[in-house]
């Protein structure tokens, strides 16, 4: 009888060698699987931006008649806003999931595993990015049926997707950071309200030069205005220029970093509890 020494060919891996990416992908897959297992939780996040794009463009159809309005299709103006809102709430939805996981004890179990702490943020982040891609694609497809057109060709989709992914990243960091700090549904109201205000206190409904009074002043200094402007680049008449692009990219980069740092510090605080 021949005995084979397995230890020479198959050495057990140290738990310390668990890397961020595989753990993150595992957590992302868990979140994505939940979409199919619990569609009632995800479908509203698809339906609301679709409804918003259609309802806003129908209700405010006539604003394109205001002299100087940058597009002759109201759906072109409101579709990118709906994508930004939908992607943002896809990120914030990850915060809701984190609250449920905290209340259900899933996070306690995760912290007992050798999964790197960062994967508890990057995993949900990857899931939010996938959700954002789904939302953007579906909203664009439905919006196209309702008359939305890319005024500068398919390249106009790039800033739309970038803005969607960026805002989903910010929403995830913000949502997770609040979830880790509050650890219950009180965080949900703060997540939604702050995000809602930040998005609407921009040129969400009309361009800056059409606004009057306080909103124009607030929107001018609101960095999220640049993100919405970025999302709209491919849908408005003025040409896509770097001048209109870099502000949005910078806002996404800075606020993504801050939001993810906020989440990481929240997670560290959670570990000390």
């Amino acid at each position: 009888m021949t005995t084979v020494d397995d230890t020479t060919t198959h050495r057990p891996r140290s738990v310390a060698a668990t890397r961020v990416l595989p753990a993150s992908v595992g957590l992302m897959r868990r979140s994505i699987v939940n979409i199919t297992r619990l569609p009632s939780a995800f479908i509203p996040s698809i339906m609301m931006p679709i409804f918003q794009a259609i309802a806003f463009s129908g209700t405010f159809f006539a604003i394109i008649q205001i002299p100087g309005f940058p597009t002759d299709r109201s759906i072109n103006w409101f579709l990118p806003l709906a994508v930004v809102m939908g992607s943002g709430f896809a990120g914030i939805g990850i915060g809701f999931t984190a609250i449920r996981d905290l209340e259900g004890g899933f996070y306690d179990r995760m912290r007992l595993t050798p999964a790197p702490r960062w994967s508890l943020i990057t995993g949900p982040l990857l899931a939010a990015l996938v959700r954002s891609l789904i939302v953007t694609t579906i909203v664009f497809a439905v919006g196209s049926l309702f008359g939305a057109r890319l005024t500068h060709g398919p390249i106009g989709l790039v800033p739309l997707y970038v803005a969607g992914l960026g805002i989903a990243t910010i929403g995830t960091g913000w949502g997770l950071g609040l979830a880790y700090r509050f650890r219950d549904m009180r965080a949900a109201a703060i997540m939604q309200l702050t995000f809602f205000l930040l998005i609407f206190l921009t040129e969400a409904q009309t361009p800056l030069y059409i606004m009057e009074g306080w909103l124009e002043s607030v929107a001018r200094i609101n960095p999220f205005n640049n993100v919405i402007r970025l999302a709209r680049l491919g849908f408005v008449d003025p040409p896509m220029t770097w001048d209109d692009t870099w502000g949005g990219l910078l806002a996404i980069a800075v606020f993504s970093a801050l939001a993810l740092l906020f989440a990481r510090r929240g997670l560290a605080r959670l570990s000390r509890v």
Partner: protein
Amino acid sequence: MTVTATAPAPTRPELHQSTVAQTLAMSKRSVLSLWRQPSLVVPSLIFPLFFAALGTASFARATSIPGFPAVDSYLDFALAGAVVQGILFGSTVGATALATDIENGFFDRLLSSPSTRSGIIVGRMAGGMVYGFFQTIFFITVLLPFGLSIKGGVAGVLTMAIGGTILALAVGALMSAMAIKTGSSEAVQGAFPLLFIAMFFSSAFFPRETMSGFYGTLADINPISHLVEGFRDLTIEGFSLSAAVRSVVIPAILAVLAVTLALRTLKHRLAAR
């Protein structure tokens, strides 16, 4: 030995057992529950004001669009939408409380008591009606210093307040029917977007004359459009019989239909026990 005969307790006046007295007692409980939980109702005061302020700053120049009624400012136009929006949002609170009563068994205890069935339902809606009246006056009072002018004067304000009160009954009854049918506060909350959709497919935010296609058709047949326009005419044109009738009769018809539906739903629920 002294024997003390206990005198029979004085009988309560007949009125205390009447339908009116029972309904009043339930109404008092309903009003108190709103008063004691301001966090439930504050959003329905803040958000309509926020949207009115947002719209006034965003759409100030839209008032010159063909089809837009002659107004001093968009704020005058926006008031009616803000009032109806607030009442639609606020009236779901009472129905949610009714569903909670069903969930925690209080509703069953009421049913097993000798109280009238209609008193239980109407009493629960009374809180919403009082709140609807308060909301109407509150929105007008808050917006007056910001330049709101009501051409209909005191009569116009009173008519709007009465219309708002009846609308609160209608919406509360409709949502109560949902609460009785499902016995779930989550289901009542879940039905809330339907009210949101009904409001958006109306002339609550922009005039019907500026809408086109299927959207314009939906707004034409939506009773909320005609109700809002009654309120709006009282604000921007002055008091007229036509505006007063639309402001009061439309919500009254809706209220009769909704209360009938709620009582029928209750009857079916009782029959199924």
